[in-house]
């Protein structure tokens, strides 16, 4: 319940940031995927059941706020949460750089799954510009992730101290 409240609060803030301020700073195509950053962060901080539910919820919100079919991002973020949680459990990548690398890989993974769904629906031209788009979006999201992770960690630490819940959690 305590983790749920934290997840709800951070999720709400991220949604607000994603639909407002970032729209003015970078082009719509290259705007950072804050949902993904939160999914990666929750994969190393929240419990599996709580985190995967949270990721699915974030994905559904992303679906509602973008042109994707409802459920697509819910599914993608669940998969990414599981993959990141697995990586963390086996390789201990819970460092700032490790999480940044997971974001760096997570963005093209998300994009590839979106493209796959598009490709199933009809022909899609994939060229050099698509690669360029993926690279730019990955770098922008990773840079924002590097700045956000310490903030999220700090907020989580203070929140845990406040409500008396153990720091960490893992998957």
């Amino acid at each position, binding site marked *: 319940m305590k983790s749920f409240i934290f997840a709800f609060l951070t999720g709400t803030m991220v*949604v607000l940031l*994603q*639909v407002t301020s970032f*729209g003015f700073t970078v082009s*719509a*195509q*290259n*705007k950072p*995927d804050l*949902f993904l950053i939160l999914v990666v962060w929750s994969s190393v901080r929240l419990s599996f059941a709580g985190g995967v539910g949270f990721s699915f919820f974030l994905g559904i919100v*992303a679906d509602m*706020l*973008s*042109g*994707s079919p409802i459920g697509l*991002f819910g599914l993608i973020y669940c998969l990414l949460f599981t993959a990141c949680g697995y990586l963390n459990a086996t390789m201990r990548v819970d460092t700032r750089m490790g999480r940044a690398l997971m974001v760096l890989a997570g963005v093209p993974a*998300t*994009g590839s799954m*979106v493209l796959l769904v*598009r490709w199933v*629906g*009809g*022909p*899609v*031209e*994939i*060229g050099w*510009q*698509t690669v360029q*788009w993926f690279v730019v*979006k990955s770098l922008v999201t990773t840079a924002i992730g590097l700045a956000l992770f310490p903030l999220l960690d700090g907020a989580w630490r203070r929140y845990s101290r406040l409500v008396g819940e153990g720091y960490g959690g893992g998957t």
Partner: protein
Amino acid sequence: MPRTVRDIAIVLILMGGGLIILFSSSGEGEAGPLSSILHAVLRPVQVVVWGVSGRARGVWNDYLMLVGVRKENKTLREEIENLEQERASLLSKERENRRLKKLLRLKEDYEFPSVVAGVIGEDAVGWYRSFFINRGSDDGVAAGMAATVAAGVVGRITRSSATVSKVLLITDPDLSLDCRVGRTRDRGILSGQLNGMCILRYVGLQSEMKPGDDVVTSGLGGIFPKGLRVGVIESVHPGSQGLFLEAIVAPAVDFSTVEEVLVILRPRGGFDIGPGLEAGR
């Protein structure tokens, strides 16, 4: 000499001297020698005193004035800020007015019912090309309806709640629409590309379409009325299988500047493709 006589003598001497001076000096013109000497002696003193007092007076006046000027400056700055804001607001309103006038003309051109909607947001994650408008099912907007501006087709409503609808842009690969090349009347299916352009597929090999030709909606499919401008052909090339021609189409609409759209409320049973909009143009 008695004292009285001496006093009278002094008075007389002084009066006489005064009379001599009075009568010796002319009314106007050059000053007399005495006056000149006096002026020569007094001048430096006068200059210094006048200068110092003038400067002191100036400093005092400046100080008093500065107190007022600072206040006035603040007021004027505030006034400038207010005027600049007012100017920006008026310019924005003027631009909005122009756009709405264009939409109104477009609305009058259409023989279909339509509703003007404002753009309130864009795709949150950026993997799709869509934006949100402030009209929903309460205003009669439903999924499948066409969104246009004066320049051409914007996209199609894909989801609609009571007060908000989602528009998928024609540059999104998920959106396909039946189109014709305006000049040659060749038909094809137009869909978006990931690079922000559109591609017109399945055009017959015998087509004479060429760069610069307009692409318009065909009216088939029942979503978009016939004759709406979609874009301009940039290049033509054979399809991958060699069975059809394909054309890269630059959208007629600059999506980054779209602030209002006209949603064409689709009549039951779709549009009558007979007369269409092209006939009226």
